[in-house]
């Protein structure tokens, strides 16, 4: 075997806005925007799925219930993405460590727990700005008012006719949503959100680390 010396380059399914740079092996956009509404491709973030039974012992250990998202000490975001199903979002390249961590954490739960790295299986976007909900309400039927889906809410629904996971994850008091879907439809969702945000002056902003 003569293994090629070229280091593998990881790519998001979403074509990066120019200019482009490489961060921890991922090709990302270096574009910057100070617009009031920004859309960022955050696909390179580590995404680890944890599965157990709904309302079972592992859920107690994990401490986040379905429909909520909570940031833990490591800075990772633990999302209760389904009954007995969590998605943990962490920094670029941290998936192996996160996988180990969650396997270890849930090992003693006394039930089947499956921890799987889904970093490569999902595309993820972040839409940030005061009008983020207004933009999304053109493509999503869920009630996005604070009284119904406040910061820290997680849900799965249809967005622009695509099954999408949504996490309300405000940034510094500014309304912000993480949206993720199957990797193969990443560009589609990105384009749909961009179009939805056009009336509110959305701009693409590269991933900052």
């Amino acid at each position: 075997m003569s293994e090629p010396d070229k280091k593998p380059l990881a790519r998001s399914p979403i074509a990066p806005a120019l200019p482009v740079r490489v961060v921890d092996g991922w090709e990302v956009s270096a574009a910057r925007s100070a617009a009031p509404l920004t859309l960022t491709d955050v696909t390179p973030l580590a995404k680890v799925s944890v599965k157990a039974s709904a309302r079972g012992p592992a859920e107690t250990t994990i401490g986040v219930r379905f429909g909520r998202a909570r940031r833990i000490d490591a800075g990772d975001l633990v999302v209760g993405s389904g009954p007995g199903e969590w998605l943990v979002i962490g920094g670029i390249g941290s998936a192996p460590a996160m996988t180990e961590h969650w396997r270890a954490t849930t090992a003693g739960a006394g039930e089947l727990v499956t921890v799987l790295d889904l970093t490569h299986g999902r595309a993820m976007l972040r839409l940030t700005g005061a009008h983020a909900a207004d933009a999304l309400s053109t493509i999503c039927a869920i009630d996005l008012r604070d009284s119904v889906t406040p910061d820290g809410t997680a849900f799965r629904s249809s967005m622009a006719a695509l099954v999408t996971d949504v996490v309300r994850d405000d940034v510094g008091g500014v309304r912000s949503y993480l949206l993720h879907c199957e990797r193969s439809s990443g560009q589609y969702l990105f384009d749909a959100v961009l179009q939805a945000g056009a009336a509110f002056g959305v701009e693409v902003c590269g991933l900052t680390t």
Partner: protein
Amino acid sequence: MTAPMRLPSQPGEVIDRTVPLMFGWNGRAASGYAGDTITSALAASGERVFSRSFKYHRPRGILTAAFDDPGCTVQVGDEPNVRAAHRRLAAGMDVRAENAWPSLKYDVKAANQLVGRFLGAGFYYKTFISPQRLWPAYESVLRRFSAGGSMSVDARRGDYDKRYVHVDVLVAGGGPAGMAAALAAADAGASVLLVEQEYDLGGHLRYGGAAELATLRELRDRVAAADAIEVLTDSVAIGRYEDNWIAVMQRTAAGVAERLVKARARSLVVAPGLIERPYVFAGNDLPGVMLSTGVRRLINLYAVKPGLRAAAFIANEAGDAAVEDLRRAGVQIAHVADARRGTGLVHATGRGGLRSVRFSDRTVEADLLVTAVGWTAPTALASMAGDRPEFDPGAARFFPTVAELPGGIYCTGGLAGDGSLDELVGHATAVGRAAATRSRVGVAPLPHDPHPALFHGPTDGFVDLCEDVTSKDLATAVAEGYDGAELAKRYTTSTMGPTQGKLEVVNTIAMIAELTGRGIAETGTTTWRPPYAPVTLGALAGRTFEPVRYSPMQPWHSAHGAKPLVAGAWIRPDHYGDPAAEVRAVRSGVGIIDVTPIGKLDLQGPDVAKLLNLLYVNKWSKLGIGRVRYGAMCADDGVVFDDGVTGRLAEDHYLMSTTSSGAAAVWEWVENWLQTEHPEWAVHVTPVTTSYASINVAGPKSRELIARVTDVDLSPDDFGYMHVRTGRVAGVEDSVLWRIGFTGELSYELHVPGAFGLHVWETLLREGADLGVRAFGVEAQRILRLEKGHLIVGQDTDGLTRGFSAGLDWAIKLDKDDFVGKPELVWQGERSDHPRLVGLATVDPQLVPPEASQIVAGGEIVGRVTSSRMSPTLRRSVCLAQLADRLARPGTTVNVRLPDGRTIQARVTDGLAAVDPDGKRMRV
């Protein structure tokens, strides 16, 4: 263009005299002001005729001066059927009359009027019957007489948008009651969406006198100041659906052509006001015959004088107010006939426009006749919520039966009853407050004021002006036995036209009631089918949201001339220019294909083997770690549903693959059996289809190529056919390799973490350049598998094909305790008369019978070709077919009928594989 009918400035006028606008009317230059409707601008310049009618091509003028004015429908550029009495004038509009040729003034089809006495109800049903052969010719002429505007093949689709809204209270109707209800609801803490069909809030206050205008200003100011109220004007609630899902058509919206707003409201307040009802008498369609509200709109909103000399037939205060407006506008009043005092209206006459009106006591010359005979309650939204409106004969109109409405539906304003402006506002305020809390507390019903019941005079006139249906047509229908409201409406088409019955429905029901000697209540109710107002297909469609899926290698495919194949949501390379060459490359060297869309499910847990045993027809208990097995799934009716290979990666860890098109269905299928039949099994299912980029490397040189990019031991002894390994590929960790052979060649299917897909793909092409590696597409893969005789579920099988008809005899294990579809397969196995999947070789090897060619014997269909191609490898045609059992023995010659009618012969082959029947190539 002069404007002889334009009045001096009116207190409530909505036109901006500082902004003149030029436009075209039937090719001539015309002008108006900003704020004018197309109709008001033309009426100001003295125009009286705006269209020709549907059937008789009679000239028609203004009736209501609002959206549903049946005579004011025009073509604007490439847009047909524009409501000219509503659509605001825009500079440069190209406005043309519809239904008129060669011109509005001289329409040759007006000849239909001469034969009108023969063209009555059911005319077409009674004629052109024989000789039957002439009917198609009649029909094509008849079609040319159809009404309406013209479509344009080049019309742009335009930008339409949608929006979801969640509100506590949606108020449909922005008149005084709607505004008051919205304000009260907002005061009670509710979020409110206030929807008004006109360009401004206010309803009838807009064309009222000084007192009304003062109230209007006050209410508008308060609404504008209320943060919790969002106002949509030029917008109509077109439908109320289950659980208060309300569709609002926003006809004017910033940045887009139109927008469909879909609102989920806790409460719905229906406050649309009332629609003025026309009166039926001979000559009631002459230009110059108007409703009182039409007259008031023209004078007060648009400063247009509706005529020079007016007669009036009135039965209510709206009529009084219209007469007063006419006086103020300087219109000569020829006569006011007050129906409340028993005076009757007999008929009106004129040619091309009103000339004279005959009342029961006199005949007067006039070019304008105002009628004010009563109201229609637009109960549409309440009806759509299940309400069945009831007729109150004393008030001569229908009312919603509020008590029977489901929770969260309220009615107010004229729809709910009568009263002074203050009383109506008071009722609406109470309703708004109740709606905010979804209670019915504190709402006292409004009284119903008496109103004379006036529907028609002593002469026959038009009941439906859109459809040219007369009262005589209704009489004919009833006399012929179409004596129920629905039958008579269907027979005459009354209420079926573009105004959707808003003006016609009550008159129609009242007359049928009278003709049949039944009461109105007994005859029927007003039915309203959504949409309440006409709505463009563009708005309903909105933007196109059709998700598409691409593999990580798509940039390479696009750059290398791949012809796209739309496969469900996936866009895949069908080929890169020469599929036959792609096939030869695989058979002789090595090729790579992007098979990312293959469905992949990660299965983990101690009970996975049980699950596999249940869902597949074959056995899974003894699959070793590192091994891969083919499996087929059937549904409980025994019909083949999907197939694929599943590999065992670790003790309790499997990776299942499915067909590309079946990926979503199989995932759901697996979850269904786990969740509903076997919740006790410990299995976790995670779809990982796009976690991996999947590349099949196929061909005799595939091992040599893979060896250059991986540290996995590829020696045949260690990594044999139907084995799976994990390792590093092209520097990418956690890659899965399985050795399988859909193409019939030595091949490795690589599943690498998705983000590295393009890297691995390009690495393979670079590293294999000297081996002649070539990308191949779906078409080449189809040929390769067909040469090898591998079936495609859904192509070589259909919705009735059970396991034994799919060549799966070897896989089906009926001795298993249970699996999905088992009983039917047991019974199928007991019989031997089912169709078989066979290979066919045409006697003339150069003839390729197209797929779906039928196999016939003795005049009967005995099978069909399911797959066929010219084989680049064998240089002859290869086919699979579904064939009757009795003909399925190898060597049997069958007749295949080609689409061109020729019949050719083909022989059933021994086994399905034409290339490498012994399977040596994939096992090397």
